């Protein structure tokens, strides 16, 4: 009996280093959290943004003032003839514009020329209070009107208005 026990002990003592050796060969146990659901969700989000995203140009506003018709006028009107900017459509479908200034020989399609001329006028009048009246024809595109308005604001005129359509 004792001999049998000692025999089995000897066998087990022979096996233990063998098992340890195998475990050592396998290397250390790697612990890793399950990443698959997270990657799934992240890709869903990425796809959503890629498909749903629309890049937009940043927009702003140019300040304008309409005449106040709510009550009696507090300030007397300025005794200067307004600068009248006439806009008429050009091109097959009105894609271009002709810019003219009344009582002057300016006739151009270049907003930069309008800006230059308005600067000259401002220097000549020595005032930025002179009214600038933009008078577009019916079929002038809004982009050309805003362009003319922008150039007048850029020339630092303070009273810029729109007249009813001409032509």
């Amino acid at each position, binding site marked *: 009996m004792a001999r049998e026990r000692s025999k089995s002990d000897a066998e087990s003592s022979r096996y233990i280093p063998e098992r340890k050796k*195998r475990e050592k*060969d*396998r290397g250390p146990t790697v612990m890793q959290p399950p*990443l698959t659901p997270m*990657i799934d969700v*992240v*890709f869903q*989000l*990425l796809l959503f*943004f*890629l498909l*749903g*995203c*629309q*890049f*937009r*140009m*940043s*927009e*702003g*506003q*140019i*300040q*304008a*003032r*309409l*005449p*106040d*018709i*709510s009550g009696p006028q507090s300030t007397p009107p300025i005794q200067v003839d307004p600068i009248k900017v006439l806009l008429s459509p050009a091109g097959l*479908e*009105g894609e271009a514009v002709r810019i003219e200034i009344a009582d002057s020989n300016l006739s151009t399609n270049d*907003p*930069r020329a309008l*800006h230059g001329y308005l600067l000259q006028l401002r220097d000549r009048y020595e005032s930025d209070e002179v009214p600038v009246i933009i008078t*577009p*024809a*019916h*079929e*002038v*595109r*809004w*982009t050309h*009107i*805003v*362009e003319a*308005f*922008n*150039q007048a*604001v*850029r020339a630092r005129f303070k009273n810029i208005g*729109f007249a*009813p*359509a001409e032509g």
Partner: protein
Amino acid sequence: MAKSVYRRGGAQVSFNMTPMIDCTFQLIIFFLLTTQAASAELVPMKLPDPIRSQARELKENKAIINVVPYSKRKIEQDRSKLGIAKEYRVKGEAVKKHDLEKIVNILKEMKRTSDKPDKFAVEVRADQKIHYDQIQPVLRVLQDAQMANMRITALIGGREE
């Protein structure tokens, strides 16, 4: 020799996911930061882009009147729709040209309930190709509603000379 290979067990092939996850997170953060939530008040359209634009971002205390053009497809089918306003939109409500009196009431109500009624402004937001005769009724509406502060929407920065 062969014994030791068996002893090691089957080889584990795995992708190195770390750089991919890094990139993906970078992209998500980029989109999260740059995405602007779509607003019902800002109808998608092509805005004027003036040279040396003087436009600045003025956010508060305002109403926006969108002058909405017909779709590209509709214009291709019928060229007479080019430059014509399909509808006007204020606070997400579509208003037809013959019904612009509605806008006067909406603006008056907005001005009345505003914190600073004297500084209340109206923004006119129209597509590049809209004709002036489609904008004129809006200007008349603004005068009827006694709105002195008007703003014109254009792209910021604009084209350089």
